[in-house]
Protein backbone atom coordinates (compact mmCIF):
# COMPACT_ATOMS: atom_id res chain seq x y z
CA UNK A 1 0.00 0.00 0.00
CA UNK A 2 2.69 2.46 1.05
CA UNK A 3 6.17 2.18 -0.29
CA UNK A 4 9.11 4.39 0.55
CA UNK A 5 12.17 4.20 -1.66
CA UNK A 6 15.56 5.55 -0.75
CA UNK A 7 14.30 8.58 1.13
CA UNK A 8 16.88 11.23 2.03
CA UNK A 9 16.18 14.13 4.38
CA UNK A 10 18.58 16.85 5.39
CA UNK A 11 18.33 19.46 8.14
CA UNK A 12 20.78 22.05 6.88
CA UNK A 13 24.02 20.11 6.59
CA UNK A 14 22.87 17.26 8.79
CA UNK A 15 21.93 14.14 6.90
CA UNK A 16 18.97 12.99 9.01
CA UNK A 17 17.54 10.16 6.91
CA UNK A 18 20.07 8.24 4.87
CA UNK A 19 18.22 6.45 2.15
CA UNK A 20 15.34 4.85 4.01
CA UNK A 21 13.26 2.23 2.23
CA UNK A 22 10.26 0.59 3.79
CA UNK A 23 6.86 -0.72 2.89
CA UNK A 24 3.51 -1.06 4.62
CA UNK A 25 0.90 -3.49 3.35
CA UNK A 26 -2.84 -2.99 3.58
CA UNK A 27 -4.27 -3.93 6.98
CA UNK A 28 -0.92 -4.15 8.74
CA UNK A 29 0.47 -2.53 11.83
CA UNK A 30 4.07 -1.62 11.08
CA UNK A 31 6.27 -0.05 13.70
CA UNK A 32 9.47 1.97 13.55
CA UNK A 33 11.60 1.64 16.64
CA UNK A 34 14.98 2.97 17.55
CA UNK A 35 16.88 5.21 19.95
CA UNK A 36 16.40 8.96 20.33
CA UNK A 37 17.52 10.80 17.24
CA UNK A 38 17.49 7.72 15.05
CA UNK A 39 15.07 9.36 12.64
CA UNK A 40 11.75 7.76 13.52
CA UNK A 41 9.76 10.97 13.79
CA UNK A 42 11.58 12.47 10.84
CA UNK A 43 10.57 9.48 8.72
CA UNK A 44 6.90 9.96 9.59
CA UNK A 45 7.03 13.69 9.02
CA UNK A 46 8.72 13.25 5.66
CA UNK A 47 6.19 10.68 4.51
CA UNK A 48 3.22 12.76 5.60
CA UNK A 49 4.70 15.85 3.98
CA UNK A 50 5.29 17.98 7.07
CA UNK A 51 8.93 18.24 6.02
CA UNK A 52 10.45 18.05 2.57
CA UNK A 53 12.62 15.16 1.45
CA UNK A 54 15.73 15.93 -0.59
CA UNK A 55 15.46 12.81 -2.73
CA UNK A 56 13.78 9.45 -2.93
CA UNK A 57 10.23 8.47 -3.72
CA UNK A 58 7.05 7.69 -1.82
CA UNK A 59 4.36 5.57 -3.46
CA UNK A 60 0.82 5.29 -2.21
CA UNK A 61 -1.00 2.44 -3.95
CA UNK A 62 1.55 2.63 -6.73
CA UNK A 63 1.17 6.37 -7.26
CA UNK A 64 4.00 8.73 -6.42
CA UNK A 65 3.06 11.33 -3.81
CA UNK A 66 6.50 12.82 -3.22
CA UNK A 67 5.54 16.14 -4.82
CA UNK A 68 2.19 16.45 -3.05
CA UNK A 69 1.56 19.00 -0.28
CA UNK A 70 0.73 17.77 3.21
CA UNK A 71 -2.88 18.73 2.61
CA UNK A 72 -3.18 16.61 -0.52
CA UNK A 73 -1.58 13.67 1.24
CA UNK A 74 -4.25 13.94 3.95
CA UNK A 75 -6.84 13.98 1.19
CA UNK A 76 -5.32 10.79 -0.17
CA UNK A 77 -5.64 9.08 3.18
CA UNK A 78 -2.29 9.59 4.90
CA UNK A 79 -3.16 11.01 8.29
CA UNK A 80 -0.59 11.89 10.89
CA UNK A 81 -1.06 12.13 14.66
CA UNK A 82 1.94 14.24 15.59
CA UNK A 83 4.13 13.63 18.59
CA UNK A 84 3.13 15.36 21.80
CA UNK A 85 -0.60 15.24 21.14
CA UNK A 86 -1.14 18.72 19.63
CA UNK A 87 -4.84 19.19 20.24
CA UNK A 88 -6.52 22.56 19.70
CA UNK A 89 -6.53 23.49 23.37
CA UNK A 90 -9.09 26.27 23.41
CA UNK A 91 -11.63 24.44 21.28
CA UNK A 92 -14.01 21.87 22.65
CA UNK A 93 -13.55 18.16 22.13
CA UNK A 94 -16.34 18.16 19.57
CA UNK A 95 -14.83 21.09 17.66
CA UNK A 96 -11.51 19.27 17.59
CA UNK A 97 -13.18 16.26 16.04
CA UNK A 98 -15.03 18.44 13.54
CA UNK A 99 -11.75 20.01 12.48
CA UNK A 100 -10.43 16.53 11.88
CA UNK A 101 -13.07 16.26 9.18
CA UNK A 102 -11.86 19.56 7.71
CA UNK A 103 -11.37 18.21 4.20
CA UNK A 104 -14.67 16.36 4.09
CA UNK A 105 -18.01 17.72 2.97
CA UNK A 106 -20.36 14.78 3.66
CA UNK A 107 -22.24 15.94 6.75
CA UNK A 108 -24.02 12.65 7.37
CA UNK A 109 -20.78 10.68 7.15
CA UNK A 110 -19.07 13.09 9.52
CA UNK A 111 -21.82 12.72 12.13
CA UNK A 112 -21.58 8.96 11.78
CA UNK A 113 -17.81 9.01 12.24
CA UNK A 114 -18.05 11.21 15.31
CA UNK A 115 -20.30 8.54 16.80
CA UNK A 116 -17.76 5.91 15.81
CA UNK A 117 -14.97 7.85 17.54
CA UNK A 118 -17.11 8.13 20.67
CA UNK A 119 -17.53 4.38 20.51
CA UNK A 120 -13.76 3.90 20.47
CA UNK A 121 -13.27 6.50 23.20
CA UNK A 122 -16.36 6.79 25.43
CA UNK A 123 -14.56 9.32 27.62
CA UNK A 124 -14.50 11.79 24.72
CA UNK A 125 -18.27 11.65 24.51
CA UNK A 126 -18.47 12.50 28.18
CA UNK A 127 -16.14 15.43 27.68
CA UNK A 128 -17.42 16.58 24.29
CA UNK A 129 -18.24 20.10 25.44
CA UNK A 130 -15.07 20.62 27.43
CA UNK A 131 -12.09 22.61 26.15
CA UNK A 132 -9.48 20.17 24.93
CA UNK A 133 -6.79 21.87 27.02
CA UNK A 134 -8.54 20.76 30.19
CA UNK A 135 -8.30 17.05 29.33
CA UNK A 136 -5.70 14.78 30.91
CA UNK A 137 -2.71 13.67 28.89
CA UNK A 138 -4.25 10.32 28.05
CA UNK A 139 -7.53 11.90 27.04
CA UNK A 140 -5.72 14.38 24.82
CA UNK A 141 -3.90 11.53 23.12
CA UNK A 142 -7.24 9.80 22.55
CA UNK A 143 -8.63 13.02 21.15
CA UNK A 144 -5.66 13.39 18.82
CA UNK A 145 -6.19 9.86 17.54
CA UNK A 146 -9.95 10.39 17.31
CA UNK A 147 -9.43 13.59 15.36
CA UNK A 148 -7.16 11.78 12.93
CA UNK A 149 -9.81 9.09 12.44
CA UNK A 150 -12.23 11.85 11.43
CA UNK A 151 -10.31 12.41 8.20
CA UNK A 152 -11.01 8.83 7.18
CA UNK A 153 -7.42 7.65 7.01
CA UNK A 154 -6.39 4.77 4.81
CA UNK A 155 -3.14 4.73 6.68
CA UNK A 156 -2.73 6.25 10.11
CA UNK A 157 0.63 7.50 11.38
CA UNK A 158 0.96 7.46 15.14
CA UNK A 159 3.97 9.23 16.60
CA UNK A 160 4.74 8.15 20.16
CA UNK A 161 1.15 7.68 21.31
CA UNK A 162 2.31 6.35 24.68
CA UNK A 163 4.58 9.27 25.48
CA UNK A 164 4.13 10.57 29.01
CA UNK A 165 1.20 8.32 29.85
CA UNK A 166 0.63 6.18 32.93
CA UNK A 167 1.32 2.44 32.33
CA UNK A 168 -2.37 1.56 32.58
CA UNK A 169 -3.24 4.16 29.97
CA UNK A 170 -0.46 2.90 27.72
CA UNK A 171 -2.12 -0.52 27.77
CA UNK A 172 -5.45 1.06 26.92
CA UNK A 173 -4.08 3.14 24.06
CA UNK A 174 -2.36 0.12 22.55
CA UNK A 175 -5.48 -1.99 22.74
CA UNK A 176 -7.42 0.80 21.04
CA UNK A 177 -4.79 0.99 18.32
CA UNK A 178 -5.29 -2.70 17.79
CA UNK A 179 -9.08 -2.24 17.58
CA UNK A 180 -8.75 0.58 15.08
CA UNK A 181 -6.49 -1.62 13.01
CA UNK A 182 -8.94 -4.48 13.12
CA UNK A 183 -11.66 -2.11 11.93
CA UNK A 184 -9.65 -1.76 8.71
CA UNK A 185 -7.15 1.07 9.12
CA UNK A 186 -3.54 0.41 8.27
CA UNK A 187 -1.16 1.79 10.89
CA UNK A 188 2.41 2.99 10.88
CA UNK A 189 3.52 3.39 14.48
CA UNK A 190 6.57 5.10 15.92
CA UNK A 191 7.32 4.18 19.52
CA UNK A 192 9.89 4.50 22.25
CA UNK A 193 8.12 1.71 24.06
CA UNK A 194 9.57 -0.92 21.74
CA UNK A 195 8.27 -3.84 23.76
CA UNK A 196 4.63 -2.84 23.51
CA UNK A 197 4.97 -1.76 19.91
CA UNK A 198 6.52 -5.06 18.80
CA UNK A 199 3.78 -7.00 20.55
CA UNK A 200 1.00 -5.52 18.47
CA UNK A 201 2.97 -5.01 15.24
CA UNK A 202 2.90 -7.32 12.24
CA UNK A 203 6.26 -6.06 11.10
CA UNK A 204 8.91 -3.72 12.41
CA UNK A 205 11.88 -1.69 11.23
CA UNK A 206 14.73 -0.78 13.53
CA UNK A 207 16.27 2.62 12.80
CA UNK A 208 19.76 3.65 13.78
CA UNK A 209 21.42 6.94 12.88
CA UNK A 210 19.04 7.60 10.05
CA UNK A 211 19.11 4.27 8.33
CA UNK A 212 17.34 0.98 8.74
CA UNK A 213 19.43 -1.66 10.52
CA UNK A 214 17.07 -4.57 10.92
CA UNK A 215 13.59 -5.45 9.83
CA UNK A 216 11.34 -8.40 10.46
CA UNK A 217 8.09 -9.50 12.00
CA UNK A 218 7.20 -8.19 15.42
CA UNK A 219 7.57 -11.56 17.07
CA UNK A 220 10.94 -12.22 15.43
CA UNK A 221 12.37 -8.96 16.66
CA UNK A 222 10.97 -9.50 20.14
CA UNK A 223 13.00 -12.70 20.32
CA UNK A 224 16.15 -11.37 18.68
CA UNK A 225 19.01 -11.05 21.15
CA UNK A 226 20.55 -7.98 19.57
CA UNK A 227 17.25 -6.13 19.71
CA UNK A 228 16.63 -7.25 23.25
CA UNK A 229 19.96 -5.89 24.31
CA UNK A 230 19.70 -2.58 22.51
CA UNK A 231 16.06 -1.62 22.96
CA UNK A 232 14.19 -3.91 25.29
CA UNK A 233 16.43 -3.72 28.32
CA UNK A 234 18.35 -7.00 28.33
Amino acid sequence: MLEVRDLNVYFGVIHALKGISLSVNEGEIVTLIGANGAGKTTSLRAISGLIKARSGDILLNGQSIINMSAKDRVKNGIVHVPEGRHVFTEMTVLENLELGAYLRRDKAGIAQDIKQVYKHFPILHERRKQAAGTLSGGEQQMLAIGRALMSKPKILFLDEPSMGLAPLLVQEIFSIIKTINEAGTTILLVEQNANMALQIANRAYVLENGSIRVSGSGQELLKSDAIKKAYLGG
Partner: protein
Amino acid sequence: MKKILKAKGFKMLTALVLTYIIIQVLVSTNIINDYMQATLVTIFINIILAVSLNLITGFTGQFSLGHAGFMSIGAYTCALITARIPTTWGFILGVLAAAIVASIAGYLVGLPTLRLRGDYLAIATLGMSEIIRIIFINMDDITNGAAGLLTKRFVNWTWLFIFTVITVYFISNFLKSTHGRACISIREDETASEAVGINTTKYKVMAFTIGSFFAGIAGALYASYFYVIKPDIFNFNKSVNILVIVVFGGLGSLSGSVVSAIVLALVSSFLQAFSDVQMILYSLLLIIIMIFKPGGLLGSRELSIAMLGDWRAFIGEKFKALRSRKEKKTTAKEDLDNDPVENK
Protein backbone atom coordinates in the same frame (compact mmCIF):
# COMPACT_ATOMS: atom_id res chain seq x y z
CA MET B 1 -32.59 27.63 13.34
CA LYS B 2 -32.95 29.95 10.38
CA LYS B 3 -35.67 31.84 12.16
CA ILE B 4 -33.48 32.38 15.19
CA LEU B 5 -30.65 33.62 13.01
CA LYS B 6 -33.02 35.98 11.29
CA ALA B 7 -34.31 37.23 14.61
CA LYS B 8 -30.75 37.74 15.82
CA GLY B 9 -29.83 39.61 12.66
CA PHE B 10 -32.94 41.71 13.03
CA LYS B 11 -32.05 42.61 16.63
CA MET B 12 -28.55 43.51 15.54
CA LEU B 13 -29.89 45.70 12.75
CA THR B 14 -32.24 47.47 15.14
CA ALA B 15 -29.40 48.08 17.56
CA LEU B 16 -27.26 49.53 14.76
CA VAL B 17 -30.01 51.78 13.45
CA LEU B 18 -30.74 52.99 16.98
CA THR B 19 -27.06 53.73 17.56
CA TYR B 20 -26.95 55.64 14.31
CA ILE B 21 -30.07 57.66 15.12
CA ILE B 22 -28.82 58.52 18.59
CA ILE B 23 -25.46 59.70 17.31
CA GLN B 24 -27.12 61.58 14.48
CA VAL B 25 -29.44 63.39 16.89
CA LEU B 26 -26.50 64.24 19.14
CA VAL B 27 -24.56 65.56 16.15
CA SER B 28 -27.38 67.62 14.72
CA THR B 29 -28.21 69.14 18.10
CA ASN B 30 -24.50 69.96 18.35
CA ILE B 31 -24.09 68.06 21.62
CA ILE B 32 -21.35 66.27 19.71
CA ASN B 33 -19.44 69.27 18.41
CA ASP B 34 -16.84 69.36 15.66
CA TYR B 35 -14.02 68.48 17.99
CA MET B 36 -15.89 65.50 19.40
CA GLN B 37 -16.81 64.46 15.90
CA ALA B 38 -13.14 64.11 15.12
CA THR B 39 -12.85 61.76 18.10
CA LEU B 40 -15.86 59.87 16.82
CA VAL B 41 -14.23 59.45 13.43
CA THR B 42 -10.98 58.35 15.07
CA ILE B 43 -12.95 55.74 16.98
CA PHE B 44 -14.44 54.34 13.78
CA ILE B 45 -11.08 54.26 12.01
CA ASN B 46 -9.48 52.60 15.01
CA ILE B 47 -12.24 50.00 15.13
CA ILE B 48 -11.58 49.09 11.50
CA LEU B 49 -7.84 48.92 12.14
CA ALA B 50 -8.14 46.95 15.36
CA VAL B 51 -10.67 44.46 14.06
CA SER B 52 -8.59 43.78 10.97
CA LEU B 53 -5.38 43.42 12.98
CA ASN B 54 -7.22 41.16 15.40
CA LEU B 55 -7.98 38.84 12.51
CA ILE B 56 -4.24 38.56 11.84
CA THR B 57 -2.85 38.62 15.37
CA GLY B 58 -5.70 37.57 17.65
CA PHE B 59 -7.38 34.91 15.57
CA THR B 60 -4.70 33.58 13.25
CA GLY B 61 -1.95 34.12 15.81
CA GLN B 62 0.49 35.92 13.51
CA PHE B 63 2.16 38.75 15.36
CA SER B 64 2.26 41.73 13.02
CA LEU B 65 3.81 45.12 13.73
CA GLY B 66 3.23 46.57 10.28
CA HIS B 67 -0.42 47.47 10.18
CA ALA B 68 0.26 51.19 9.83
CA GLY B 69 2.19 50.46 6.65
CA PHE B 70 -0.86 49.03 4.93
CA MET B 71 -2.97 51.83 6.28
CA SER B 72 -0.60 54.35 4.70
CA ILE B 73 -0.80 52.59 1.34
CA GLY B 74 -4.58 52.94 1.50
CA ALA B 75 -4.37 56.56 2.57
CA TYR B 76 -2.01 57.58 -0.23
CA THR B 77 -3.85 55.61 -2.89
CA CYS B 78 -7.15 57.22 -1.98
CA ALA B 79 -5.70 60.71 -1.63
CA LEU B 80 -4.03 60.49 -5.03
CA ILE B 81 -7.25 59.37 -6.68
CA THR B 82 -9.50 61.93 -5.00
CA ALA B 83 -7.01 64.63 -5.95
CA ARG B 84 -7.77 63.82 -9.59
CA ILE B 85 -11.48 63.02 -9.22
CA PRO B 86 -12.65 65.28 -6.39
CA THR B 87 -16.20 63.94 -6.12
CA THR B 88 -17.99 61.42 -3.95
CA TRP B 89 -17.67 58.91 -6.73
CA GLY B 90 -13.97 59.61 -6.81
CA PHE B 91 -13.89 58.90 -3.10
CA ILE B 92 -15.72 55.59 -3.54
CA LEU B 93 -13.33 54.64 -6.30
CA GLY B 94 -10.47 55.74 -4.06
CA VAL B 95 -11.59 53.54 -1.17
CA LEU B 96 -11.93 50.53 -3.45
CA ALA B 97 -8.54 51.14 -5.02
CA ALA B 98 -7.01 51.72 -1.59
CA ALA B 99 -8.34 48.43 -0.29
CA ILE B 100 -7.19 46.53 -3.35
CA VAL B 101 -3.72 48.05 -3.49
CA ALA B 102 -3.22 47.53 0.25
CA SER B 103 -4.34 43.93 0.04
CA ILE B 104 -2.00 43.28 -2.89
CA ALA B 105 0.81 44.74 -0.80
CA GLY B 106 -0.30 42.57 2.11
CA TYR B 107 -0.25 39.51 -0.09
CA LEU B 108 3.22 40.28 -1.42
CA VAL B 109 4.58 41.00 2.05
CA GLY B 110 2.79 38.06 3.63
CA LEU B 111 3.93 35.42 1.19
CA PRO B 112 7.59 35.46 2.18
CA THR B 113 7.32 36.73 5.78
CA LEU B 114 4.55 34.47 7.06
CA ARG B 115 6.93 31.54 6.94
CA LEU B 116 8.51 33.16 9.97
CA ARG B 117 7.13 32.76 13.43
CA GLY B 118 6.72 34.89 16.54
CA ASP B 119 9.33 37.58 17.09
CA TYR B 120 10.88 37.08 13.67
CA LEU B 121 7.57 37.78 11.97
CA ALA B 122 7.06 40.87 14.14
CA ILE B 123 10.48 42.20 13.13
CA ALA B 124 9.92 41.43 9.45
CA THR B 125 6.52 43.15 9.34
CA LEU B 126 7.91 46.10 11.26
CA GLY B 127 10.70 46.35 8.70
CA MET B 128 8.23 46.21 5.82
CA SER B 129 6.11 49.03 7.18
CA GLU B 130 9.19 51.18 7.71
CA ILE B 131 10.25 50.47 4.13
CA ILE B 132 6.83 51.56 2.90
CA ARG B 133 7.11 54.76 4.91
CA ILE B 134 10.58 55.55 3.59
CA ILE B 135 9.39 54.93 0.03
CA PHE B 136 6.58 57.43 0.51
CA ILE B 137 9.04 59.99 1.87
CA ASN B 138 11.28 59.57 -1.12
CA MET B 139 8.68 59.50 -3.90
CA ASP B 140 8.66 63.31 -3.91
CA ASP B 141 7.02 63.67 -7.32
CA ILE B 142 3.95 61.69 -6.40
CA THR B 143 3.61 61.87 -2.63
CA ASN B 144 5.17 65.26 -1.99
CA GLY B 145 7.68 63.62 0.33
CA ALA B 146 7.81 64.34 4.03
CA ALA B 147 5.53 67.38 3.72
CA GLY B 148 2.67 65.07 2.76
CA LEU B 149 -0.47 65.49 0.70
CA LEU B 150 -3.33 67.86 1.18
CA THR B 151 -6.77 66.91 -0.17
CA LYS B 152 -10.31 67.79 0.74
CA ARG B 153 -12.78 66.32 3.19
CA PHE B 154 -15.01 63.93 1.29
CA VAL B 155 -16.79 62.09 4.06
CA ASN B 156 -18.79 62.74 7.17
CA TRP B 157 -19.11 60.38 10.07
CA THR B 158 -22.01 58.48 8.43
CA TRP B 159 -19.63 57.05 5.84
CA LEU B 160 -17.33 55.91 8.58
CA PHE B 161 -20.18 54.32 10.45
CA ILE B 162 -21.20 52.39 7.34
CA PHE B 163 -17.67 51.22 6.57
CA THR B 164 -17.09 50.19 10.18
CA VAL B 165 -20.27 48.13 10.22
CA ILE B 166 -19.33 46.48 6.93
CA THR B 167 -15.84 45.66 8.23
CA VAL B 168 -17.00 44.13 11.49
CA TYR B 169 -19.78 42.23 9.74
CA PHE B 170 -17.45 40.83 7.09
CA ILE B 171 -14.70 39.80 9.47
CA SER B 172 -17.05 38.21 12.01
CA ASN B 173 -18.72 36.23 9.23
CA PHE B 174 -15.36 35.23 7.83
CA LEU B 175 -14.38 33.89 11.24
CA LYS B 176 -17.51 31.77 11.40
CA SER B 177 -16.79 30.20 8.01
CA THR B 178 -14.64 27.15 7.31
CA HIS B 179 -11.79 29.47 6.37
CA GLY B 180 -12.11 31.34 9.64
CA ARG B 181 -12.06 28.12 11.62
CA ALA B 182 -8.93 27.11 9.76
CA CYS B 183 -7.30 30.41 10.74
CA ILE B 184 -8.21 29.93 14.40
CA SER B 185 -6.86 26.39 14.36
CA ILE B 186 -3.50 27.73 13.16
CA ARG B 187 -3.35 29.95 16.23
CA GLU B 188 -4.24 27.00 18.44
CA ASP B 189 -1.68 24.59 17.04
CA GLU B 190 0.07 24.94 13.73
CA THR B 191 1.41 21.38 13.58
CA ALA B 192 -1.96 19.87 14.36
CA SER B 193 -3.76 21.98 11.79
CA GLU B 194 -1.27 20.92 9.18
CA ALA B 195 -1.81 17.32 10.22
CA VAL B 196 -5.58 17.54 9.70
CA GLY B 197 -4.97 18.84 6.19
CA ILE B 198 -5.16 22.61 6.56
CA ASN B 199 -2.90 24.51 4.19
CA THR B 200 -1.44 26.73 6.89
CA THR B 201 0.57 29.05 4.65
CA LYS B 202 -2.48 29.71 2.50
CA TYR B 203 -4.66 30.67 5.44
CA LYS B 204 -2.01 32.78 7.09
CA VAL B 205 -1.57 34.71 3.86
CA MET B 206 -5.35 34.92 3.45
CA ALA B 207 -5.81 36.41 6.93
CA PHE B 208 -2.95 38.81 6.31
CA THR B 209 -4.37 39.89 2.95
CA ILE B 210 -7.86 40.45 4.32
CA GLY B 211 -6.39 42.34 7.28
CA SER B 212 -4.42 44.59 4.90
CA PHE B 213 -7.51 45.10 2.76
CA PHE B 214 -9.38 46.66 5.67
CA ALA B 215 -6.31 48.54 6.88
CA GLY B 216 -6.28 50.08 3.40
CA ILE B 217 -9.91 51.12 3.80
CA ALA B 218 -9.11 52.65 7.18
CA GLY B 219 -6.27 54.60 5.60
CA ALA B 220 -8.51 55.81 2.78
CA LEU B 221 -11.12 56.98 5.29
CA TYR B 222 -8.45 58.72 7.30
CA ALA B 223 -7.21 60.59 4.24
CA SER B 224 -10.73 61.52 3.18
CA TYR B 225 -11.74 62.88 6.56
CA PHE B 226 -8.62 64.50 7.98
CA TYR B 227 -7.40 65.52 4.47
CA VAL B 228 -3.76 65.88 5.50
CA ILE B 229 -1.54 62.84 5.25
CA LYS B 230 2.16 62.65 5.97
CA PRO B 231 4.38 59.58 6.06
CA ASP B 232 5.13 60.25 9.71
CA ILE B 233 1.53 59.63 10.74
CA PHE B 234 1.98 56.00 9.77
CA ASN B 235 5.13 55.26 11.72
CA PHE B 236 6.00 52.51 14.16
CA ASN B 237 4.02 54.23 16.92
CA LYS B 238 0.86 53.96 14.88
CA SER B 239 1.32 50.21 14.46
CA VAL B 240 1.92 49.84 18.17
CA ASN B 241 -1.16 51.92 18.99
CA ILE B 242 -3.31 49.62 16.89
CA LEU B 243 -1.77 46.60 18.57
CA VAL B 244 -2.45 48.17 21.97
CA ILE B 245 -6.14 48.48 21.10
CA VAL B 246 -6.25 44.84 20.04
CA VAL B 247 -4.43 43.49 23.08
CA PHE B 248 -6.36 45.77 25.42
CA GLY B 249 -9.68 44.55 24.06
CA GLY B 250 -8.62 40.94 24.04
CA LEU B 251 -6.76 38.92 21.43
CA GLY B 252 -9.40 36.90 19.67
CA SER B 253 -12.41 39.05 20.54
CA LEU B 254 -13.88 41.29 17.84
CA SER B 255 -16.28 42.99 20.22
CA GLY B 256 -13.32 43.44 22.55
CA SER B 257 -11.54 45.41 19.83
CA VAL B 258 -14.62 47.55 19.27
CA VAL B 259 -15.09 48.28 22.97
CA SER B 260 -11.41 48.93 23.48
CA ALA B 261 -11.17 51.30 20.50
CA ILE B 262 -14.04 53.32 21.99
CA VAL B 263 -12.70 53.25 25.55
CA LEU B 264 -9.13 54.17 24.61
CA ALA B 265 -10.22 57.00 22.31
CA LEU B 266 -12.45 58.44 25.03
CA VAL B 267 -9.72 58.08 27.61
CA SER B 268 -7.09 59.78 25.49
CA SER B 269 -9.41 62.60 24.48
CA PHE B 270 -10.33 63.07 28.12
CA LEU B 271 -6.64 63.13 29.02
CA GLN B 272 -6.03 65.95 26.51
CA ALA B 273 -6.95 68.28 29.37
CA PHE B 274 -3.81 67.20 31.22
CA SER B 275 -1.50 67.63 28.29
CA ASP B 276 1.71 67.55 30.35
CA VAL B 277 1.15 64.15 31.86
CA GLN B 278 -1.18 62.78 29.20
CA MET B 279 1.08 60.03 27.93
CA ILE B 280 2.14 59.05 31.43
CA LEU B 281 -1.45 58.67 32.60
CA TYR B 282 -2.41 56.81 29.45
CA SER B 283 0.44 54.34 29.84
CA LEU B 284 -0.22 53.94 33.55
CA LEU B 285 -3.84 53.18 32.87
CA LEU B 286 -2.84 50.55 30.31
CA ILE B 287 -0.40 48.96 32.73
CA ILE B 288 -2.93 48.87 35.55
CA ILE B 289 -5.63 47.34 33.40
CA MET B 290 -3.27 44.76 31.94
CA ILE B 291 -2.24 43.77 35.46
CA PHE B 292 -5.81 43.19 36.54
CA LYS B 293 -7.13 41.90 33.24
CA PRO B 294 -4.17 40.28 31.51
CA GLY B 295 -6.36 38.74 28.82
CA GLY B 296 -7.74 42.13 27.81
CA LEU B 297 -11.15 43.61 28.49
CA LEU B 298 -13.09 40.70 27.04
CA GLY B 299 -10.45 37.97 26.81
CA SER B 300 -11.38 35.85 23.84
CA ARG B 301 -15.12 36.08 24.49
CA GLU B 302 -17.58 38.02 22.41
CA LEU B 303 -20.09 40.54 23.54
CA SER B 304 -23.50 39.62 22.17
CA ILE B 305 -27.13 40.38 22.57
CA ALA B 306 -27.58 36.94 24.12
CA MET B 307 -24.91 37.87 26.64
CA LEU B 308 -26.76 41.07 27.49
CA GLY B 309 -29.83 38.87 28.04
CA ASP B 310 -27.78 36.69 30.36
CA TRP B 311 -26.67 39.71 32.31
CA ARG B 312 -30.24 40.92 32.55
CA ALA B 313 -31.30 37.52 33.82
CA PHE B 314 -28.37 37.51 36.25
CA ILE B 315 -29.15 40.95 37.59
CA GLY B 316 -32.84 40.10 37.70
CA GLU B 317 -32.11 37.03 39.78
CA LYS B 318 -29.89 38.95 42.15
CA PHE B 319 -32.58 41.54 42.47
CA LYS B 320 -35.21 38.92 43.14
CA ALA B 321 -32.98 37.26 45.73
CA LEU B 322 -32.45 40.58 47.39
CA ARG B 323 -36.15 41.35 47.42
CA SER B 324 -37.13 37.95 48.73
CA ARG B 325 -34.55 38.30 51.47
CA LYS B 326 -36.02 41.67 52.35
CA GLU B 327 -39.50 40.21 52.27
CA LYS B 328 -38.41 37.37 54.49
CA LYS B 329 -36.96 39.83 56.91
CA THR B 330 -40.08 41.91 56.97
CA THR B 331 -42.36 38.92 57.22
CA ALA B 332 -40.17 37.54 59.97
CA LYS B 333 -40.42 40.87 61.68
CA GLU B 334 -44.16 40.92 61.25
CA ASP B 335 -44.39 37.43 62.60
CA LEU B 336 -42.36 38.50 65.51
CA ASP B 337 -44.65 41.44 66.09
CA ASN B 338 -47.82 39.48 65.69
CA ASP B 339 -46.99 36.34 67.49
CA PRO B 340 -43.90 36.54 69.63
CA VAL B 341 -44.67 33.39 71.52
CA GLU B 342 -44.79 31.11 68.53
CA ASN B 343 -41.48 32.34 67.27
CA LYS B 344 -39.77 31.37 70.41
